[in-house]
């Protein structure tokens, strides 16, 4: 039975300084494996629709007649299933997070 047994840890943390980073003022460097937003290399896309069928949340929409590929950023959960199944390997996952947004707009890319 002892009292004030946390004194050693408290003293060490007083000498160490803050353990947190001042995030918006200091830039955060993500690890290279961090899951971030999906990017597409549009000239390679053949509009097969595999990514649309496999997406678990239904965020991707492929329209062959309009040559358009669109993704709803708020719906995407960054699982990278679309990156695995694309036959031409034109989808990649960046390690930066998606930009904040206010509405459910879609990001559209076309080849037209």
């Amino acid at each position, binding site marked *: *039975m002892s009292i004030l047994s*946390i004194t050693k840890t408290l003293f060490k943390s007083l000498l160490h300084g803050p353990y947190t980073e001042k995030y918006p003022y200091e830039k955060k460097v993500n690890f290279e494996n961090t899951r971030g937003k999906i990017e597409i290399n549009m000239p390679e896309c053949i509009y097969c629709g595999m990514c649309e069928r496999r997406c678990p949340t239904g965020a991707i929409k492929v329209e062959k007649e309009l040559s358009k590929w669109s993704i709803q950023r708020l719906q995407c959960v*960054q699982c990278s299933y679309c990156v695995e199944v694309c036959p031409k390997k034109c989808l990649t996952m960046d390690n930066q997070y998606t930009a904040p947004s206010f509405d459910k707009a879609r990001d559209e890319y076309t080849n037209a």
Partner: protein
Amino acid sequence: MDKRTIIPFGPQHPVLPEPIHLDLVMEDEVVVQAIPQIGYVHRGLEKLVEKKDFQQYTFVAERICGICSFMHGMGYCMSVESIMDVEIPERAKFLRTIWSELSRLHSHLLWLGLTADAFGFESLFMHSWRLREQVLDIFEQTTGGRVIFSVVDIGGVRKDISEDMLKKIAALMDTFEKEVKEITDVFLNDASVKSRLVGVGVLTKQQAHDLGAVGPMARASGIEEDMRTQGYAAYGKINFKPIVAQSGDSYARTEVRIGEIFQSMDIIKQCIAIMPEGEIKVKIKGFPNGEYFTRLEQPRGEVIYYVKANGSKFLDRVRVRTPTFANIPALLETLKGCALADVPILILTIDPCISCTER
């Protein structure tokens, strides 16, 4: 007979991590009975199997809970692999074991922080969570996410851990052990912590057996049962014994969970030492047909997965029996006869994960 009053211990309370409602029937500051109500975070995830096919459902199964997320995904994938008779590579089994034990480590450190917060020791809470951040950094470097990993798949795992990273993890476990020991010594020896935990909420061995308690709640009352001894994933090749305490009060449950923290670090070091080379995933063909039960050991106890498939790409039924659901009757038994100030500690002592309980 004294007058009885009912105090609602509401869904919103500063000490609860997730909402649960208890009506406490009191006689002058002593709780006589507790009546629970759950259902505040029900999301209907079991019905979602009718809309998502069996490979997309892995991502839904992971999101049942934020703290035990990896083992939910693993349990679902193990059931479907057994129905389809798929044998996953050895390296994938070891990788799954390493991530499971890291999940157990971070979950128990989170629980230690919440318990310290429940009896008001806020600086101990902050130090426990500061140590947990190092485990979350390992997760982000190996899988890409801090809480939801999306790394387990039917047929194996989707990402590999390189040799350098494995050596880094093994070296980190050694320095981590010393830092964690400073904090856990405070939990086990400090007089103010002991006065809140010793003798509070005693559950005898016979009561734990009759009420069906699982996990650390049962092991702290003397029942020696741990699902990892069944040998799923790579546990058949690892040396470990379940950690058991005898007194059955909240202090014993703290001892069991602290013992499991150090045991997890040891299991991770053993896994890294004997990890084989090879592939990490096998390709699967066709659709599952049949049904299967899987039992795993989550940080909170024994979880049961039942999957039923009928040969098409949508499954028939998925049913999850989570450990918190099995521990609620034991919780109500320990609440009888306790003082009102002990109610938050006793609720936290079962390690409630209500979002698992109502999917």
